[in-house]
């Protein structure tokens, strides 16, 4: 076990917890276009996000034993478990993003630290710093095409890919976990900006915001 000081960032006190978009819902609303909608938008709030850094071989062994997932070694690769709730994404040759259901991140971090022992690695809990916005519907790709500089055509962006690039003016991770869904991992401080951009860009498709 390493001697890193860790703590569970989730409090069990009665302080109400708000998602990064809580402010945006109050100030910008959550439009419902109903049946005419070609785009669904929802926040997958309060998930557990961990950044793993270190050598691929050492980390791969640890996440396979602890999480049951292979560490994606190929650039831009995104792997998920069967339920789609747990994922690991390649961010750089020595950096990966793990997203798990909220509350699982601290036990996972603890288990990984135990497993990795004195290996050379770093684990950072970034759950409070970012959130996931999910786009689905037939217009999702079209919306991304007019917003991001990256080529999101299916020939360049198949399912199981994820890239860090620029969404509007914000650094954003764009992922494609399935045929019909896209995920944006945005910084908490950019969440309102991204949300309002999405509402504006999606107005022509009749956006349905699911809260």
């Amino acid at each position, binding site marked *: 076990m390493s001697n890193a000081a860790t703590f569970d960032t989730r409090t069990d006190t009665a302080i109400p917890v708000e998602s990064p978009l809580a402010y945006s819902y109050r100030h910008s609303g959550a439009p419902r276009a109903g049946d005419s909608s070609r785009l669904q938008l929802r926040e997958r709030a309060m998930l557990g996000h961990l950044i793993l850094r270190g050598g691929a071989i050492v980390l791969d062994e640890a996440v396979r034993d602890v999480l049951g997932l292979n560490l994606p070694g190929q650039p831009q690769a995104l792997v998920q478990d069967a339920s789609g709730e747990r994922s690991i994404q390649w961010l750089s040759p020595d*950096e990966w993003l793990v997203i798990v259901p909220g509350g699982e991140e601290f036990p996972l971090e603890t288990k990984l630290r135990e497993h990795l022992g004195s290996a050379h690695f770093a684990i950072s809990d970034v759950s409070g710093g970012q959130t996931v916005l999910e786009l689905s519907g037939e217009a999702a790709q079209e919306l991304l095409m007019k917003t991001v500089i990256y080529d999101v055509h299916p020939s360049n962006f198949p399912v199981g890919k994820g890239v860090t690039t620029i969404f509007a003016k914000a650094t954003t991770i764009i992922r494609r976990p399935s045929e019909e869904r896209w995920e944006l991992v945005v910084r908490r401080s950019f969440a309102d900006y991204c949300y309002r951009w999405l509402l504006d860009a999606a107005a022509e498709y009749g956006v349905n915001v699911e809260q």
Partner: protein
Amino acid sequence: MFYIYCPYCGEHREEEEFHPKGQAHIERPKEPEACSDEEWGNYLFFRDNPRGVHHEMWVHAVGCRKFFNMTRHTVSYEILETYKMGEQPSITADSQNPPRETVPVSHPEGVRA
């Protein structure tokens, strides 16, 4: 716009994701205390400004955030290659420009854009 191949991401990405970081392959003197003022000044402040092939360091700032090297032509702006840190360029001024005696006599200055 440049369309830059990141050797770590393994694909071409938009210039907006990158920042140039100056001349590549500058080695910090192993023993700074043993340097003369001139050697230390050269290391700190003096950079090549060639007309032609140049080796530069870039960072994939929005992306993998890794530094890498680029061989670029300062007249045509053409990117000739990119390669990882610690590697050596395969294209250099010497490999690009044939030795002087084989250069044709009339060699117009400047390159059409």
